[in-house]
């Protein structure tokens, strides 16, 4: 056998190292960000303990007065960081967004995948993708100018009638800036994401399986319900989780329509809220003026909680999508 020249060996090593660095850079990047957020959060974690996620009062304290020493850390006097309203705001608005977006996206995806053909399908697909590309600040503006008044004067008063059955639907409706409007704005942003993924999944359902149902005398809806949707189930849940992550992390649009609630929990569907992402963006500037630095640490801890939640939903999404993929391959054999 011919010997491999040392030049080739060196090139090979360089190549290995280079690809290694390239491949691991996303992980390193993620770890670096996580590390910063964790380190920055530590003083706040020590100050607040579990009260950070159970407390309601968010107060930077008297940043010009005396410093307070507690649990080995220093903060402005009277400072208290209870993030529960923001955690609830994030979860509630994103869940409302999903409750609106899931049926809309599934229905749109079904029409795109099975009902429309040729250039009509192409155009509607493009429109859905365009919707995904609208900057969130533009959607936020629409939410403020169009949606909030509509919620305050049209949708809200109608929905309050449901309050007889479900207490959370009871008024007062307020200004229209709040939970429901945030949820709808987020739904608009999440629908294209779920739709596009679901459409791709539905198109991958082999026509042979659908014809099995059609040939048995199933209606279009029955084929969808018993064959197509079960076939893509995990992938669809994955798409939902991706959309959920997106909704929880969305900052600008929510900041614009949430009503910026602070120090209270939402009491009904129309109540003003704040989300974790929106609070970080809107409070960071004033937090910088806290000489003890604690306000910034508290916002970091908020970022840590948000990061944890979005990572969790994303991981879940990947897991479910890849499981569908494996099963589909198994079925083909």
């Amino acid at each position, binding site marked *: 056998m011919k010997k491999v020249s040392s030049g080739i060996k060196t090139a090979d090593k360089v190549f290995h190292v280079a690809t290694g660095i390239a491949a691991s850079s996303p992980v390193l990047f993620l770890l670096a960000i996580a590390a910063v957020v964790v380190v920055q959060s530590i003083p706040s974690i020590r100050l607040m303990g579990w009260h950070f996620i159970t407390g309601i009062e968010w107060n930077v304290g008297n940043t010009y007065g005396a410093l307070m020493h507690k649990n080995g850390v220093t903060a402005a006097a009277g400072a208290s960081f209870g993030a529960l309203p923001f955690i609830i705001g994030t979860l509630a608005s994103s869940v409302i967004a999903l409750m609106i977006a899931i049926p809309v996206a599934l229905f749109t995806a079904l029409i795109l995948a099975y009902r429309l053909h040729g250039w009509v399908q192409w155009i509607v697909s493009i429109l859905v993708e365009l919707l995904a590309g609208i900057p969130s600040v533009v959607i936020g503006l629409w939410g403020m100018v169009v949606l909030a008044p509509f919620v305050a004067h049209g949708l809200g008063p109608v929905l309050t009638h449901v309050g007889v059955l479900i207490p959370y639907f009871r008024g007062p409706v307020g200004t229209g800036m709040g939970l429901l409007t945030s949820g709808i704005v987020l739904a608009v942003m999440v629908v294209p994401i779920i739709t596009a993924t679901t459409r791709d999944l539905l198109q991958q359902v082999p026509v042979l399986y659908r014809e*099995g149902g*059609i*040939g*048995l*005398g199933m209606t279009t809806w029955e084929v969808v319900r*018993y064959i197509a949707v*079960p*076939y893509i189930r995990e992938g669809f849940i994955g798409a939902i989780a991706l959309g959920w992550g997106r909704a929880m992390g969305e900052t600008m649009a929510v900041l614009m329509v949430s009503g910026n609630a602070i120090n209270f929990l939402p009491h009904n569907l129309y109540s003003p809220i704040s989300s974790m992402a929106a609070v970080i963006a809107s409070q960071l500037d004033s937090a910088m003026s806290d000489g003890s630095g604690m306000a910034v640490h508290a916002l970091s801890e908020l970022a840590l909680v948000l990061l944890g939640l979005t990572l969790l939903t994303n991981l879940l999404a990947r897991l479910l999508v890849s499981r569908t993929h494996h099963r589909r391959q198994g079925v083909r054999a």
Partner: protein
Amino acid sequence: MSQPISVHNLKAWYGTQLTLKSVDMELPASQVTAIIGPSGCGKSTFIRCLNRLHETLPGARVEGDVHLGTQDLYKVDPVDVRRMIGMVFQKPNPFPTLSIFDNIALGLRLGGVHNRGQLREAVERSLQMAALWGEVKDRLSEPATSLSGGQQQRLCIARAIAVQPEVLLMDEPASALDPVSTLRVEELVEQLKDTYTIVIVTHNMQQAARVADETAFFLNGEVVEFADTTTIFTNPTDKRTEDYITGRFG
């Protein structure tokens, strides 16, 4: 009681391409009709027009008429047509997310049968008829995809007959099966033909000769010859039929 199918001036298109060119056929009740012909001649397209499956493909179109008994099939809801005319496909296609039991029970449930005992009975009966019961009776709740290809095909046969259609269309039902399973399917066809009008597409000349009462030879989207099976195989009138069955082309 099963009924005859009469096909008159049937044409089918894929987009602008005319694939079936004016087919006229009388398929007698309670008989097995075999469709033979070279690959691509329109056999599958033809039987997919009988249960109105052809028109579900984007761009596909049908013209002409198909009667089951006195009923004009192109004037009733296609869903009802397909409940009367069951189909077994060229490739096994059990519902991949359902269990063996549910593959058969689903059609019944959608047809309004919900009684647990009745379902069990119907599932067992269909599986018996499809010669699959013995192999699956202890694993009815396992996924259908855990079965072998031949078993899956017999499951599809069971699924089709469970809902008791009047006509059974079989598109090369045995092409994916081993000789033993093939034999079972042929026995099944023999047994079912008292109750069903059966149309079976096959590439296998011996199979047509064994199971069919009548045989139609298709070529380029047309029926070249349609007669009782013995005549087709021993004394065809058309030269092209003779060439095909003696293996000179196709």
